[in-house]
């Protein structure tokens, strides 16, 4: 855990006149698990979406795995190969089976043989606990199962970094745990993770570092221990008291 795999320096992003990201600087080391939290509209999602170029940043530098994100399509493609992403709304491909969802990327982008891709997809489905669903369509699965497929799909590309954009926010309460269990397993496997999430129990258990976002800026960051028990900023204290008190 030494050299940084993601380096962001003074990243800015505007939507029209709205200044969504106001100078985010952050370094993520290899194998680190980072939890980003904060009120809605604070730029958390926007920020992690700039890391694989789903959103374009307009100022500042982002370097992922030694490659700088520029307008160069080759750089973007190279970075997307190494960065997996899990969305709030799952975004599985409804016209493909679970197996096809998972193997599409490896076959098309990594150019693996179909047999190899399917073998690895099966291993991943075992890992997320739903191998028996391999030949169903996403519409036939529960929300929790779909999100686990989405995790398997992202992992199938064997990325170095995984981004999670509020992976449990669209789930029924009883399904949140099954997804969090899978994510905890991943975190312990040593992959670099950036997770936008409001599940503070999960954050406390697996995060190496927690980052608090508000109004497009990083207000505070530190170990879960520091952030929960000894927050420095008033804004952090207020937010934590609101979400922990119910």
């Amino acid at each position, binding site marked *: 855990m030494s050299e940084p795999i993601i380096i962001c320096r003074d990243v800015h992003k505007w939507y029209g006149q709205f200044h969504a990201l106001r100078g985010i600087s952050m370094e993520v080391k290899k194998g680190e698990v980072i939890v980003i939290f904060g009120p809605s509209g604070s730029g958390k999602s926007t920020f992690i979406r700039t890391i694989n170029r789903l959103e374009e940043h307009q100022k500042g530098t982002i370097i992922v795995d030694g490659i700088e994100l520029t307008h160069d399509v080759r750089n973007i493609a190279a970075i997307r190969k190494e960065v997996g992403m899990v*969305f709030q709304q799952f975004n599985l491909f409804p*016209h493909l089976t679970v197996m096809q969802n998972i193997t599409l990327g490896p076959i098309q982008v990594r150019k693996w043989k179909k047999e190899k891709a399917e073998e690895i997809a099966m291993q991943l489905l075992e890992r997320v606990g739903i191998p028996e669903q391999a030949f169903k369509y996403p519409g036939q699965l529960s929300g929790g199962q779909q999100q686990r497929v989405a995790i398997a799909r992202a992992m199938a590309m064997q990325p170095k970094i995984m981004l999670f954009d509020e992976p449990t926010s669209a789930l029924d309460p009883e399904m949140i745990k099954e997804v969090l269990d899978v994510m905890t397993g991943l975190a312990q496997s040593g992959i670099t993770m950036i997770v936008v999430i409001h599940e503070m129990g999960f954050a406390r258990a697996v995060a190496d570092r927690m980052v608090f976002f508000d109004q497009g800026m990083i207000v505070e960051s530190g170990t879960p221990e520091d952030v929960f028990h000894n927050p420095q900023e008033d804004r952090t204290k207020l937010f934590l008291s609101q979400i922990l008190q119910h």
Partner: protein
Amino acid sequence: MTTQVTTPNEVLPPPTERYTILGWLHKNLFSDWFNSILSIIAGAFVFVIVRGLLRWLFVTAQWAAINDNISLYMKGQYPGAEDWRLWLLIYLAVLLTGLMWGVFMRRTSAITWVLMMMPLILGGWVFALGKPSWWLVALLDIVGIAGYLLAKRFPQTSKRLTVTLLLLYMPLVILVIRGFGETGFLPRVGTNLWGGLLLSLLLAIIGIVFSFPIGVLLALGRQSKMPALKTLSIIYIEVIRGVPLITLLFMGQVMLPFFLPAGLTIDRVIRAVVAIIMFAAAYMAENVRGGLQSIPQGQFEAADAIGLSGMQKMVHIILPQALRTVIPVLVGQFIGLFKDTSLVALVGLLDLLGIARGILANPSYIGRQLEVFAFIALIYWIFSYAMSYAARRLEISLGVGER
């Protein structure tokens, strides 16, 4: 107060409704006095119409205008000695249908469909060549079923075979129907001899096959981020959509020759086909665009996130979903296109309608309009309905609306 709980083991079956004919009549037609009056009036109305229709069909109507010219309706002046070419193509088409059914459709009950539809379409075609040799039809059915079973038995080989045949079929149709050279094997049959249902179907099928990919490209062009491409697509679509098809046909037939250098002529059928393709592509583009816009942003993002290129994203994620949602609209358009081909009669081509008009101009068939137009209407209906039925099966098989 106690609540009765049904445990999963003792789930009750739904109540069965039992109907007698009288019960059904009472419930649906004579439930109260007002409904009864309506039913009686409607019944009398239907009776009068059906009686008139039957009387016309079997007593008044004189079918000589159709019986004497059946071969003209079906294939125009296409020489009888070359009929075997059409038969060959029909056999290939049936084999292909069977193969496609076996390869692409998951539900086995489809075999019933094959059994049901094939004699219907083929019946028309046997008629077609004016030689109702039933063993040829029986053999056709056998070829179709053989294709289906082949596809089920050897899925991999059949898939490759089917795709190859599909790609080759259109060029083959044109090559075989037209022929080449003056004498010898497959002598040329000029397009002036193509006619009737043969010409209508050729115009429609070529129109559909070519306008579809052009339409998809135009739709993608209109959605493109490249300004030149986008503007060109929009101009093309809006100009063509602002012009009636008949205008395009007239321009092709009447005005185009003035712009061509002297001595250079383009075949009239080709000019008509090009006009139809150009026209249909613009409408196709707008329908496909509707499908593209119905795809949620998340699908694009998910495709980007796993690293697919723009092309891969379109081919594997966006287009399959977009086209699936617009199947009903596209089929509606295909049916419209098939019927619109009858406009070529107005510029002098002898398609089904053109032949009908020609036959009606013959003094011996004066006053037989009703019979002739009812007959070609029936033919148009059979093919339109077959398309619509096939599309519904396709939708069910692709699970539109289920996932």
